[in-house]
């Protein structure tokens, strides 16, 4: 603050004194102090330290400081190829994915076409399903024994590789972009476009000169979001990548498969740097350029474009993609009842029986761990959001940045970090259920924090101040006012945490042990061995469990919700 206009610049000691007083002011309340400390400890122990361990190991793995592991990456054609693969895939998926997302978003907000609800369902499906469903279905459809490729056309094409992976990633990740862009498009005030029309612009000209420029920051944002997802994607990449290896997969294979931990950490640092760069661009550079403020207020009704020249082609493309995705989602449950895909399509319960007997402990372990992790993740998410939005304390910005950055953190990097950090004294956690629960919590909490922050920013802080003036301590304010006001967010973070817990692959693949197993890892192993029937059956069980628990959760929360509403 060199250009400080303040009449008297405070001395450093005074500044210190000041922030100390601020700290004392904040922690007048012990409950608040405990929540701040515990959130900070969780973030430091399970996000920051593991990342630093990786960084440290990548330099010091051999005992002395060296850049050898990096030198070997950049000298090895194989490793350079992997880095190039990852970026090429990320850029391709992000470009196609954003285009598809925009097409869907534009169709649903601007065009007069039927079946819009179908698009919405489609956009939620990939978020609640295990990450393999699409790639598994792609193999069932287009693989060597694929329904379309082999049974219909008699071809044995190679779906495993760049284009297969790109296809599955686009189908898996475009819905995130779709939701984001729909939200933005809905918040463009129609009168801006009407003003352009009134000034003599045709509809297509309005699109080119007003709507598109307004959307540019949003499009860039969506592209980066999809790019980050593609970088971090492990599930699809390992199932359908074939010989086309990406960083996320290579970190796992080098670390667990070849026990070249130092090499793995160096690769992890490279992946981490690319992800953090993309995250930084998304949040700092592009995030601030947005023209559209998302107010949450319903704008004026938009007159939908019914021009057949626009609606018919857009509708056809959207419908084709939707049908493809929906077919894929039907194929996996169907595959669970087929004797041998591509050869013998007769009905069997063999796979289901297999999954319910031999696979039983996978199912139970996964359920147990997810059910433990879910409330912890949701609570941590809401509490951290509350602290970030409402309270002032030293380390607040650090907390916010760390948690939000964790959204962009590739799961394999975090998993590797856990293996490294908690494999050796002072704290040994690998092999325990605890580290799995922690991994599930850390992978889902940041999204809860983000939506919590968004929700709390909508709530006037004076409502909580009023409660406090009425005699409520900070804990009472939180439970009697804050929580009831953001109930929908709490529900959605519970649901999200549970789904994430059930479907996570990347981080936990480093942490499963003989004692604790996870369903998703079982699916991966089945796919690896080519036992698609069993993999399909596991997926089916997973989908049923997620659906069932979601239904139970919404039932109970609604009941609780009524109670929360009645009294306080």
């Amino acid at each position: 603050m060199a250009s400080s206009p303040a009449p008297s610049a405070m001395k450093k000691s005074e500044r210190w004194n000041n922030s100390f007083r601020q700290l004392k002011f904040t922690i007048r309340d012990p409950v608040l102090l405990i929540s701040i400390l515990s959130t900070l400890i969780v973030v430091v122990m399970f996000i920051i330290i593991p990342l630093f361990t990786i960084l440290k190991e990548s330099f010091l793995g051999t005992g002395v400081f060296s850049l050898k592991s990096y030198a070997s990456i950049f000298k090895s054609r194989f490793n350079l190829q992997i880095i190039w693969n990852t970026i090429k895939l990320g850029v391709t998926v992000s470009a196609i994915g954003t285009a598809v997302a925009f097409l869907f978003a534009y169709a649903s907000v601007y065009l007069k076409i039927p079946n819009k609800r179908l698009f919405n369902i489609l956009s939620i499906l990939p978020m609640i399903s295990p990450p393999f469903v699409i790639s598994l279905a792609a193999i069932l459809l287009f693989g060597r024994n694929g329904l379309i490729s082999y049974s219909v056309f008699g071809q044995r094409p190679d779906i495993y590789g760049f284009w297969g992976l790109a296809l599955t990633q686009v189908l898996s990740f475009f819905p995130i972009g779709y939701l984001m862009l729909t939200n933005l498009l809905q918040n463009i005030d129609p009168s801006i476009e009407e003003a352009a029309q009134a000034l003599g612009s045709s509809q297509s000209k309005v699109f080119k000169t007003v709507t598109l420029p307004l959307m540019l920051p949003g499009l860039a944002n969506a592209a980066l979001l999809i790019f980050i997802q593609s970088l971090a994607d492990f599930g699809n990449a390992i199932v359908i990548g074939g010989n086309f290896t990406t960083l996320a997969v290579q970190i796992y294979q080098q670390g667990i498969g070849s026990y070249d931990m130092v090499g793995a950490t160096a690769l992890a640092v490279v992946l981490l740097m690319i992800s953090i760069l993309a995250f930084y661009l998304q949040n700092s550079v592009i995030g601030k350029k947005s023209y559209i403020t998302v107010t949450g207020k319903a704008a004026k009704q938009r007159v939908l474009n019914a021009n057949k020249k626009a609606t018919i082609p857009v509708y056809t493309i959207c419908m084709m993609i939707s049908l493809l995705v929906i077919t894929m989602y039907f194929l996996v449950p169907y595959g669970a009842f087929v004797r041998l895909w591509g050869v013998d399509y007769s009905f069997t319960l063999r796979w289901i029986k297999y999954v319910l007997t031999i696979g039983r402990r996978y199912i139970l372990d996964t359920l147990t761990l997810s059910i433990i992790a879910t409330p912890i993740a949701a609570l941590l998410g809401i509490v951290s959001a509350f602290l970030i939005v409402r309270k002032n304390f030293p380390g607040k910005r650090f907390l916010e940045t760390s948690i939000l950055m964790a959204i962009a953190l590739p799961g394999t990097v975090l998993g590797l970090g856990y293996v490294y950090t908690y494999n050796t004294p002072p704290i040994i956690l690998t092999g325990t259920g605890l580290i799995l629960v922690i991994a599930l919590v850390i992978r889902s909490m940041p999204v809860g924090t983000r939506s919590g922050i968004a929700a709390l920013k909508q709530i006037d802080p004076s409502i909580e101040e009023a409660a406090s003036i009425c005699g409520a301590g900070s804990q009472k304010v939180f439970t009697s006012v804050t929580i009831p006001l953001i109930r929908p967010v709490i529900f959605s973070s519970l649901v999200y945490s549970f789904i994430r817990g059930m479907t996570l692959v990347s981080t936990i693949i480093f942490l499963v042990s003989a004692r604790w197993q996870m369903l998703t890892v079982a699916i991966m192993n089945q796919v690896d061995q080519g036992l698609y029937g069993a993999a399909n059956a596991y997926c089916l069980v997973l989908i049923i469990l997620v659906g069932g628990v979601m239904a139970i959760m919404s039932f109970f929360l609604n009941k609780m919700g009524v109670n929360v509403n009645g009294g306080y």
Partner: protein
Amino acid sequence: MDTSTAKEVKLVGLTKTFITSSRGEVHAVQNVDLTINPGEFVTLLGPSGCGKTTLLRMIAGFEMPTSGKILIDGNDVISKTPDKRDLGMVFQNYALFPHLNVFNNIAYGLKIKKINPKEIRERVLDGLKIVKMDDFAERVPAQMSGGQQQRVALVRALVMKPGVLLFDEPLSNLDAKLRIHMREEIRRIQKEFGITTVYVTHDQSEAMAMSDKVVILKDGIIQQVGTPQEVYQTPRNAFIANFIGKANILDGEILSKTKSAAVVSIEGASYTVPRPTTWKAGDKVQVVVRPEAVTLGKGDIEARLIKTVYMGVSQDYWISVQGKEFEVSDYNPAAKEIYTDNQMVKIDFIGKSLHILEPDAAV
């Protein structure tokens, strides 16, 4: 409802400095000393950014003073959280709990105090009677108008029988007519309960109409503390004169003075101002003249009329005096002669309604 035990609020050397990334250090409140007596209605008045809300929020406990003391009935409350300070507060945007109905909104604090349900019921319903909203107990905030919501917020603060009641621009979201009605209601209730009140507003007519004492703030510094009459009739400086009502400030010279009066000459005409002054004869001074305290058509000063506007209650004139625009409001214009642009008019003042700014008034 019995009356609360009104408390005294004393601010000693209260200072708040914000450290911002864009503007460096911002001195929001500087070295404020102020005593608010038990049962008194004190208004903190000033333009936006003058520090009045920060001051109120420090009393409430939402902001931490950089230095200084806040004494409530002699006890320093700085280390206490807001819920432990025995305060009531009414917010600008009502801040009702949207998930609770009116009854539960008002009962919220009483329940925390663990008062028995029967008494809670009585106190809530009595409170609603005071603001004539007996039938609204079951409504939720979303079903009420702004004025109704603010009444509920007022009752929610009152039922706690707080030692001090704080208001943060409570009427600024209401329309003009309702604002006038509500300020009378708040003042009536405050007098009835004899509750110590600190009221923040940027609306000077609100401050004039309601207060026992007005505190005028600018840039975090107290400019003047006084009754509404004092701050209007004898503003300490030109800022206050212009902020409270309209003011013309003319250059003059002290011709002579006694202990209780001074004779001042403006544009060659002389007037006796019947108040003591610290100026000496021969000093150049600034004289505050209110637009409504001017008589047209007679007097010893003659000047050119620049423009005139008909306002209904008054005919307003801008006249060129001492090279500046001098504003005059002539009330009840229907009964008066109307002057037209470019005409020369005579103007006259009564010495009693003139005010000489004191030497320490430099702004």
